[in-house]
């Protein structure tokens, strides 16, 4: 064996990135070559040492949701809790699927309609306020609904309620927007009374009206209401103050122009920050506050070319996001180019600084994600769920690595080309050693490509006492 033999330990020190090019030219430092990015990290999550791990599979919650024997699209999921006054809380899963709002009591897997006759395929919004589940959608026909957890059906929210599309509680008021006839108007209800929208403390605030945008999302964050506008010029506004009138009256403070939101359901909190997609990328409010619309500060900077070129931007405003906090993941579902079905997950692991991206369903299919939500299971675990356009509700991240307890999917990692410090130097690899956490008595595949040669595949055994078969 040559005395020039060098040992190189290769580890993953970065996530999925499409925009750093196909090659990493770093030389090993102290025998370690830490890869700063991966060209592919599909259907994986990361261990804290950076190792990609095939993401968990899915199991079905309940039967397929049908209307007249035909599968309907699951448009939204919500975890509705009531504390009551008897010391025993109650939980309902809520879904808007097809033309109905349905509930599942005791997480039985059985759905019961609490509202029928809705427009289908609209984008819903859910909130819990004053012991009611309050639902609205982007329908211009269906009016917002409220449900107390006991009645057989929902009720119209209130005769004076505007026909808003999304809403958020803030300062004991229900704020709402997305009214087609007043696209830049922010409404708020009477104090602790979401059924009353005239008189009392109710009112409205016009946010930069007729600026070419509409209000696309609102969220209460750090004692203010953040109002996102889009999808064209893009802007974010702060609503300061604590009441409609008085010494601390509500006031609109422009926050930034050039960054804004594409929709309400993709907007959520992680850590002490807000994250949100726009037509230009995925952003963090804290980074936007520090750097404005500088593209270097975009959360999605490593994958911007994928975001711009490989997603269907005509349905970008139907994306769903969820903070899967128990795993440290911010997750969005999008439709890829050429499709209107949301089958692609962009996954941002914010346990790392900077965060690391991965994808699910980009290179090979994973579970469709027409909508996303974090719901508590019967075991009180906060768990990620997805609703599909084919009528199914999946619990994601289950231990079994198959979809709906049967279908295969592929955890797949591809490094950039590595020249170990020089592409001019010819090298010869003598031996390799994979260190792995065995997951079962079966194999995984290892593939390598030398220069322009065809890739060669090897099967690596995980179980048993011997190595390569």
């Amino acid at each position, binding site marked *: 064996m040559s005395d*020039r033999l060098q040992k190189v330990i290769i580890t993953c020190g970065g996530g999925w990135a499409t925009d750093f090019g196909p090659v990493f030219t770093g030389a090993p430092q102290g025998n370690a070559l830490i890869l700063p990015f991966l060209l592919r990290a599909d259907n994986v999550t990361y261990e804290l040492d950076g190792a990609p791990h095939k993401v968990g599979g899915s199991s079905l919650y309940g039967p397929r949701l049908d209307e007249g024997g035909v599968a309907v699209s699951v448009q939204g999921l919500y975890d509705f809790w009531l504390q009551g006054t008897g010391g025993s809380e109650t939980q309902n899963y809520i879904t808007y699927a097809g033309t109905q709002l349905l509930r599942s009591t005791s997480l039985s897997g059985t759905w019961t309609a609490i509202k029928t006759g809705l427009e289908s395929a609209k984008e819903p919004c859910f909130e819990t306020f004053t012991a009611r589940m309050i639902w609205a959608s982007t329908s211009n026909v269906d009016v917002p609904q409220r449900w107390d957890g006991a009645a057989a059906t929902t009720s119209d929210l209130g005769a004076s309620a505007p026909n808003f599309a999304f809403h958020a509680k803030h300062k004991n008021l229900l704020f709402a927007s997305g009214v087609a006839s007043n696209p830049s108007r922010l409404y708020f209800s009477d104090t602790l009374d979401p059924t009353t929208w005239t008189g009392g403390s109710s009112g409205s605030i016009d946010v930069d009206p007729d600026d070419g945008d509409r209000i696309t999302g609102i969220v209460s964050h750090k004692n203010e209401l953040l109002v996102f506008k889009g999808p064209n010029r893009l802007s974010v506004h702060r609503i300061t103050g604590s009441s409609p009138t008085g010494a601390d009256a509500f006031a609109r403070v422009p926050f930034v122009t050039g960054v804004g939101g594409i929709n309400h359901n993709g907007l959520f909190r992680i850590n002490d920050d807000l994250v949100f997609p726009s037509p230009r990328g995925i952003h963090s409010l804290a980074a936007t506050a520090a750097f404005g619309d500088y593209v270097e500060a975009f959360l999605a900077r490593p994958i911007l070319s994928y975001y711009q070129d490989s997603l269907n931007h005509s349905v970008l405003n139907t994306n769903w996001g969820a903070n899967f906090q128990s795993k440290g993941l911010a997750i969005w579902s999008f439709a890829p180019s050429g499709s209107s079905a949301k089958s692609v997950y962009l996954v941002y692991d914010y346990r790392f600084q900077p965060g690391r991206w991965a994808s699910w369903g980009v290179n090979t299919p994973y579970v469709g994600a027409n909508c996303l939500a974090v719901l508590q299971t019967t075991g009180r675990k906060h768990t990620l769920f997805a609703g599909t356009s084919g009528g199914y509700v999946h619990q994601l991240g289950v231990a079994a690595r198959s979809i709906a307890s049967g279908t295969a999917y592929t955890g797949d990692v591809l490094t950039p080309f590595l020249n170990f410090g020089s592409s001019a130097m010819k090298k010869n690899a003598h031996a390799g050693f994979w*260190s792995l956490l065995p997951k079962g008595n079966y194999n995984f595949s290892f593939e390598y490509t030398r220069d322009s040669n065809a890739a060669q595949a090897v099967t690596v055994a995980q179980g048993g006492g011997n190595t390569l078969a």
Partner: protein
Amino acid sequence: MGTFTLNDPILGVLGGGQFTTRAFRMNGEFRDLQLRWYQSVASQDMEPHYLELFIDVLGVDESLPS
């Protein structure tokens, strides 16, 4: 250039503790090397953590790239 012979005889099981180390022989020349690992079988998982390669630096390759 030579070819990889990764399915050569087993070198043995190394390591201990949490990770299992799987060894394989390699014998092929390259300037640049790309790696991929994947698991596509239903109900089967994978969690490789790191890869050690033993590389012989042969010298400057003045030939035209293939």
